[in-house]
Structure formats: structure tokens, C-alpha cells
């Protein structure tokens, strides 16, 4: 299995945000633009962080924003947002964040293959820095190894 296609609608590059909530909201709007999730999924992603803290910042510079599977998710997919200026999420080790990857999955049993692919891609690699520096949709799709 490879990652699902990441269409141009699901990619926002060099977004200007003032704080982590705006960064997550931008990622939510990309999911919605790509038909992956309803607008309310962004609220759910923000609520997860408000409730549990900035644990979604799973590696230096990268936030994996996500919420639980629910009716807001239309299909499995990811969105990629790079920030013009990195923002702090309040994580003790991995701030500031320059790349937000938003993950939406339909059912919890289908996500395993998808996150395994993310692990393949990001483990011990330069993919986060490469994404942060991406200049075009093509760059992002090439780094992720996904079709447009």
C-alpha cells in the first residue's frame, strides 16, 4: 500500500499563520478543499490538542494533526501545509512547527497501513526539512511519493 493521492487542493505552501490553531485550521481547510473531510473536522483536530496537549508534534518541526474517525471524514486522506513562519504548539522538544500533516481516516482499522507508509517515509530521513522547503505541489508529491 502507498499513501493515497494528494491532489493540489490538499497542499498549501508557505501559509502565514499567527498560532497553532490557525495552522491546524489551514490543514483542515485543505482536507475540505480536497473532499476528504467536512469543515467541522478542523474543530475536532483542534479540540484533540486542546484536550490532550501538543502531542501531535511527533517529530521536530512536524505536527501530525488528526482526530478520531467520525462522520466528518469522507475518505481516507492527508493534507500538507507548510508555514511561512514556524509556530510553537507548546511541545517540550519538537517546537517550532513548520510542516502540518493532517490525517483523516474513515475507520480506525484502515489507518494502520497508512501510518506505516508515513513511518516508511519519515523515519530517519530528511523528509520534514524537504517538505518545509518545498516550492511547488510537484515537490510535495515527489517527497511523499504520491500521485497528484
Amino acid at each position: 500500500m502507498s499513501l493515497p493521492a494528494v491532489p493540489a487542493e490538499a497542499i498549501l505552501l508557505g501559509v502565514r499563520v499567527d498560532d497553532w490553531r490557525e495552522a491546524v485550521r489551514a490543514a483542515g481547510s485543505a482536507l475540505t478543499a480536497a473532499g476528504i473531510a467536512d469543515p467541522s473536522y478542523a474543530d475536532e483536530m483542534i479540540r484533540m490538542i486542546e484536550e490532550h496537549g501538543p502531542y501531535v508534534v511527533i517529530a521536530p518541526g512536524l505536527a501530525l494533526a488528526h482526530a478520531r474517525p467520525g462522520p466528518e471524514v469522507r475518505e481516507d486522506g492527508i493534507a500538507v501545509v507548510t508555514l511561512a513562519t514556524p509556530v510553537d504548539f507548546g511541545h517540550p522538544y519538537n517546537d517550532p512547527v513548520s510542516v502540518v500533516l493532517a490525517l483523516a481516516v474513515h475507520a480506525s482499522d484502515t489507518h494502520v497501513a497508512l501510518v506505516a507508509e508515513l513511518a516508511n517515509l519519515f523515519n530517519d530521513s530528511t523528509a520534514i526539512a524537504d517538505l518545509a522547503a518545498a516550492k511547488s505541489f510537484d515537490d510535495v508529491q515527489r517527497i511523499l511519493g504520491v500521485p497528484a
Partner: protein
Amino acid sequence: MKIVAICGAGIGSSGILKVNAERVLGRLGIEADVTAAHLATLTTDAANAQIILTSPEFVDAIGKTNADVIVVHNYFDTAELTRKLQDALG
């Protein structure tokens, strides 16, 4: 051996921890049953777990447990995970 990876939603971050823990344990030649779970189901999922893998935010919420709680900083750094799992497994 039973290992549980915990996050808030039980899908994204704990899934990555599960996948990477399985990889590292495979390389170390250690057999383990690794599950991804979220806080709401922690008490049932983590019963009898020897090791709980999680991020710094969840340590307090996990509270008192007989398991070794391993706090992972960079989920994509398999060297960190290897070192911490080896330490916990003695």
C-alpha cells in the same frame, strides 16, 4: 510481551509508534504484541502491558501503572526508540 502505544485519538501518533516499535523489536529479535490505543480505553488496553509507549503529554494521564512508561520525543527517530526499548527491557 505486551506493549501498548498511547495517544489521544488512538489513530495517528500511536499508530506510528506501534509500527516503529514493531520494526525496532523485529531488528532486536524480540517478540512482542504491540497495540495502538487511546486514553479513553487505556485501562482495558494497557492491562498486563509490560511497556507503555507515549509522548510527554500523556504521562500524567496514564498515572500509576506497573508497566514501564517510555516517553518518546521524536517518533521518527528509530535510534531513540531502539535505545529506550533496550533500556526498558534491560
